């Protein structure tokens, strides 16, 4: 006959039912023996008050043993029955009952493969996230660079606009035309100078 270790019950109660019953058995038995010893000593004491009587302590001891043996037999039988009932009806957890602390096993009965798949999925998500995070960093770095470049280019543009404004302010109108006019004039000047040089050479 296999012994049921009642491990699930132990998980719930905090003790093994069989251990509990054993403890109670020993305690009860001890009380029984104790009581019998008290009975015996009381009787012996009473006998002391009867100096003439023929009853010896030995006889009393025999009586005690007789009664105790009788009691012990009934005690064992009755206790055995009690233990059986308690283990079957009170200190047991029926097969279809799941302790609340074990609910996860009912809710998530994952096989080894399913569990592994879940772990793999998580690993993959972590890698994807890391990739997105570095992509984001790169994008933001370019954005910063762009800001600097844009600032420089806008400065140059502003400088050009600044030139236009200066010229307009000083009434020279379109500076390019003025420059063009100047270059033409200086060309004319150069021609005139050349003429003058030649003429002066002729004069000499």
């Amino acid at each position, binding site marked *: 006959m296999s012994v049921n270790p009642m*491990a*699930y019950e132990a998980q*719930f*109660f905090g003790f093994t039912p069989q251990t*509990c019953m054993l403890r*109670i058995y020993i*305690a*009860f038995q001890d*009380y029984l023996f*104790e*009581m019998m010893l*008290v*009975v015996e000593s009381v*009787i012996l004491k*009473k*006998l002391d008050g009867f100096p003439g009587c023929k009853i010896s302590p030995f*006889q*009393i001891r025999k*009586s*005690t043993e007789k*009664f105790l043996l*009788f*009691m012990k037999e*009934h005690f064992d039988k*009755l*206790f055995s*029955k*009690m233990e059986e009932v*308690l283990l079957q*009806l009170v200190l047991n957890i*029926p*097969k*279809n*009952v*799941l*302790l609340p602390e074990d609910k*996860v*096993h*009912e*809710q*998530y*009965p994952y096989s080894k493969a399913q*569990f592994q798949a*879940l*772990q793999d*999925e*998580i690993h993959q*998500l*972590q890698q*994807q*996230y890391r990739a*997105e995070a570095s*992509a*984001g960093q790169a994008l933001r770095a370019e954005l910063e660079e*762009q800001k600097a470049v*844009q600032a420089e*280019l*806008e400065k140059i*543009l502003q400088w050009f606009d600044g030139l236009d404004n200066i010229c307009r302010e000083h009434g020279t109108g379109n500076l*390019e035309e003025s420059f063009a006019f100047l270059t033409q004039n200086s060309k004319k000047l150069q021609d005139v100078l050349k003429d003058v040089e030649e003429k002066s050479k002729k004069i000499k």
Partner: protein
Amino acid sequence: AGDEDGPSVQATPGRAEVFATVVDTFLEKLVAAGSYQKFANCYRCFYKLQPEVTRSIYDQFISQLQTSVKDEIQEVKNEGNLELLFNSLDKMVEEAKNQEEPAWRPSGIPEEDIRSAMVPYLLKHRSYLRKILKEKEEENRKVAESVLAGRDRIGELQQLIQARKHAWQ
């Protein structure tokens, strides 16, 4: 009999009740077996000498025994918090009454059993990762748009500058 006010009588007694009843029955039967007749019979000589004393000793013996037994039971109940546990177990049994399949039991292999315990945490972690990944992707999409716009702007500026340069030459 009509319905009574108050809690209805349970069809099956709870564990606490069964426990108390079983202990009481044990005591009853033990006391019945260890009757006064039997006691007096064993201590015949003394009984003949002092019948009243015998009776009184017996009564005390029985009463002491019953008290000790009941006290021990109470101590066991208190130490183990059994009243509470019995009631809570009764409730669980009641809740599972429609369940015919045997419930899960520890397999004895911790690595196997711990899987299910970890699953809820892993599921939470997974949904968290999915969420932040989505947010990051959305964020990056927006930044990418800004980057592209920025590139266009720079191109634009470069063109304007080229135009100015040409005009001044």
